[in-house]
């Protein structure tokens, strides 16, 4: 899975670069502050792929669904004379991890020794497989850069809460995503998001569609 996703990411990056190079300068809007269709809310349902162990009980490869809602709080970002903007994003990702055998270990609470001197555990507790459904609740600041009529990119620092179906609850105090959008129309885009760096989410990618209202 990692090699495949890496190839996809590389292909998309190349596509973006080629697209930006080959299109006319008039279509590039990054230096035209505020030059874009404005919106209040971005609703982004997506598929989620994870290909390594996240924090908590889950392990193995993950596949799931999620949704992100981002509310634009400033039409103008932190850099003057640049077409950037800022939003606050909240979301929910449900990811099913298939388990790698590294999960709950279990403890032997009663051991007996049989003939030959070999110990046999006859009572254990706390064991389990580690195929786990994990829920992430990210809260991020989304900093957008509107590069081109067809392309925009964003960075998302924030935090996330996680909860799994073994009842384990935790918090990731700092997360960071980077992503990009290909604009199909003024209010619909294809959106790819990658966790950067990999920790604490584990290698993690989301691909979906964004709808801007």
């Amino acid at each position, binding site marked *: 899975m990692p090699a495949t996703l890496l190839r996809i990411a590389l292909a998309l990056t190349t596509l973006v670069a080629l697209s930006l190079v080959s299109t006319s300068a008039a279509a590039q809007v990054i230096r035209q502050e505020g030059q874009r269709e404005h919106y209040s809310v971005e*609703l982004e349902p997506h598929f989620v792929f994870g290909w390594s162990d996240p924090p908590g009980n889950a392990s193995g490869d993950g596949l*799931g669904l999620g949704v992100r809602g981002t509310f634009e709080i400033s039409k103008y970002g932190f850099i003057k004379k640049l077409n950037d903007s800022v939003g606050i994003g909240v979301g929910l990702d449900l990811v099913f991890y298939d388990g790698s055998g590294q999960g709950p270990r279990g403890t*032997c609470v009663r051991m007996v020794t049989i003939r*030959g*001197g070999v110990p*046999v555990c006859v009572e254990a507790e706390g064991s*389990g497989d580690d195929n786990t459904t994990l829920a992430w609740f990210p809260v991020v600041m989304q900093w957008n850069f509107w590069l081109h009529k067809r392309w925009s990119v964003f960075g998302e620092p924030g935090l996330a809460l996680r909860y799994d179906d*073994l009842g384990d609850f935790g918090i990731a105090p700092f997360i960071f995503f980077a992503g990009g959008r290909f604009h199909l129309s003024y209010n619909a885009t294809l959106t790819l998001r990658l966790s950067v760096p990999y920790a604490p989410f584990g290698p993690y990618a989301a691909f979906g569609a964004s*709808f801007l209202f």
Partner: protein
Amino acid sequence: MRLARLLVAFALASLAALPACDDDDFCRPGAPCECSGGNECYLNCEGTGCSETCHDLDRCGGICGDVCNFNCHNMDECSAYCGDACSASCHDTVACGIICGADCDYRCNNASRCSAQVGPGSTVTCRGLTSCEVTCAGTCAVDCEGVGRCQVWCGADDDTPTDCTNGASCGC
């Protein structure tokens, strides 16, 4: 309107692609439960038809009910505790041990020590071991090959084991 249709289509596609998830992630019958790496692991599965696997760690134990399948390999100590009609194997391990009920099938390969305490109608196969020591509660068949010392006791109170070394097949 077009946007709404797009949203509905995406939602339906997403639901169709949603992987099946379970509420109980503990070892359970019918679903393989695996443990590997690290120091110790003890798997516990209640019910009939469990399947447990342990490998590449220091110590592991599998506990399960009837008609259980348990496999372990590449570790120092591995033990199994299961009910009737269980099938277990242990290989490339320093010490293998099992306590099982009736009609169980236990296979030990390429280990230093293998000990089994089995119920009536069980079969124990030992290959390439330093020692294989079996206690049968009732009838049983023990097959040793390439084993330094193979002994069978017929019952817990039996003080005179049968020597099954040198390729002899014996039992109680």
